[in-house]
């Protein structure tokens, strides 16, 4: 029931109202925290996990930011429902495998969420639209302070916040930006860019991990190291590198428009044509076409459309979103039909307005 309600609207952060939102889809800060005196989840018995979840959920109740949140028990969900949460960036792949005493707390706008008993006792995250990573950090920082009033965190001055995986020890913070880089992708500048980013101590990857082709030309930049630097320094670094990438994408778009203007228009027009007239669309095809159209919209070639509509569509058409919204399991062909119908509906409705 809760999930179906969620499926009827897109997350707040897909609204494209943040700075540079045409290129920076979203930014995210997450913190890993553990309770002192309790074994970390990968090794803990069920009874420990239960004690931990009781404590954490009690702290959540007293939190000003989280008290009106949705509380979702992972063990009560089907695999499609867990996948639904994964696609909405509310849980990690690890968490989506389910398990006892695991909870997701998510505030209604889905900007703030907390996984209880993932790899660490607490995984707190904020996602905002566009490039406002420092704001995302400040928000997460505040909620972390608030939760800490009722929890004792495992911490050592030398090592900082103690985490299950040594890659998170210290600040326990991962700060990342998700970027839509179609012009850099089409001009084959992405590989070089990724290499340069890794030289700066950051990780750049397609949405499916290193070495894989990124579907829809979406890429993610995040910090690698969590020990030795202050959170603000790290956030600042990720933000400034992202800003440079945004600058390069803008430049590539200008060049593309000037050099291959007519080809570009043709490609985007065809993408639009297919999207508004197809009756069956596979997920991969839809994403690739929507990505092209999103670039066109950013370049003001489709004045009747805006980036937000496209962002929402990316959200709504994944297999799990479709099935949760419909409230039933669906065969691939049925999904392809529904996907095409939703896209046609959204794009042509808006097209007729003006």
């Amino acid at each position, binding site marked *: 029931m809760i999930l179906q309600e969620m499926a009827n609207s897109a997350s707040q952060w897909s609204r494209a109202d943040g700075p540079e939102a045409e290129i920076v889809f979203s930014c995210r800060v997450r913190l890993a925290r553990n309770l002192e005196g309790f074994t970390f989840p990968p090794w803990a018995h069920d009874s420990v996990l239960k004690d931990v979840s009781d404590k954490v959920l009690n702290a959540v109740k007293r939190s000003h930011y989280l008290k009106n949140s949705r509380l979702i028990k992972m063990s009560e969900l089907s695999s499609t429902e867990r996948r639904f949460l994964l696609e909405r960036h509310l849980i990690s792949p690890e968490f989506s495998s389910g398990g006892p005493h695991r909870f997701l707390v998510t505030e209604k706008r889905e900007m703030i969420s907390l996984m209880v008993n993932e790899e660490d006792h607490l995984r707190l995250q904020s996602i905002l639209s566009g490039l406002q990573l420092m704001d995302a950090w400040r928000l997460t920082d505040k909620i972390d302070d608030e939760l800490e009033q009722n929890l004792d965190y495992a911490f050592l001055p030398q090592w900082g916040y103690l985490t299950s995986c040594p890659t998170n020890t210290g600040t326990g913070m991962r700060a990342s930006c998700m970027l839509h880089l179609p012009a850099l992708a089409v001009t084959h500048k992405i590989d070089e860019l990724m290499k340069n980013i890794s030289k700066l101590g950051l990780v750049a990857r397609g949405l499916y991990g290193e070495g894989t082709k990124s*579907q829809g030309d979406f890429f993610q930049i995040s910090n690698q190291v969590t020990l030795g630097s202050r959170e603000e320094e790290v956030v600042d670094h990720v933000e400034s590198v992202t800003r440079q990438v945004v600058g390069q994408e803008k430049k590539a778009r200008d060049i593309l428009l000037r050099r291959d203007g007519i080809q570009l228009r043709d490609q985007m027009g065809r993408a639009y044509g297919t999207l508004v007239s197809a009756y069956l669309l596979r997920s991969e095809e839809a994403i690739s076409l929507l990505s092209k159209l999103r670039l066109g919209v950013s370049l003001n070639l489709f004045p009747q459309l805006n980036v937000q509509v496209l962002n929402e569509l990316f959200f709504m058409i994944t297999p799990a979103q479709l099935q949760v919204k419909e409230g039933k399991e669906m065969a691939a062909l049925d999904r392809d039909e529904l996907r095409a119908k939703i896209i046609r509906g959204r794009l042509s409705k808006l097209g007729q307005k003006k």
Partner: protein
Amino acid sequence: MIGKKKTIIVPKKKMICQVCGEREATFHFQEMTNGQVKELHLCEICAEKKGLGQTFFMPGFSLSNLMAGLTELEVPLSQGTSVSCPHCGLSYGDIKRKGKIGCGLCYQELEQYLTPLLERIQGKVRHSGKVPKKGKVEDQRERRIYELRKELEILVRKEEYERAAKLRDEIRRLEREK
């Protein structure tokens, strides 16, 4: 590593799905089961049936998974299996196998084994970020420094340099006391 290990691979030529034999394969994995390598080429539909399909927005292999693999390869310690943490009961051998530390106390009790591991991943550095509000006496000083630094940043942004300078001296004084 217990169970199967999957790695995404990029094939050189177009492949047909091994399950249905009809559609083009778009998911390519190398699967390791007990040392045996098997390649898998599946189309979107069959991959999904097998629970392997990845759709848009699904974050891929996490950094920590990669790192867990790394620690397995890079820490050739046969010792460290006899000492175990008094709280969670794990030895360094256990931790190494899973790539995950057992509890907060491991960081102290198994320090001699964990320090080289942490230094390899993070560099030879000390934590300089956020500090919990509640904590031991020495932690409280660190928390104070953390809060002063935040204030300092705000003052600098407001260009209130005189007050910022005072704050900076205060931070230095506290740091010397460490």
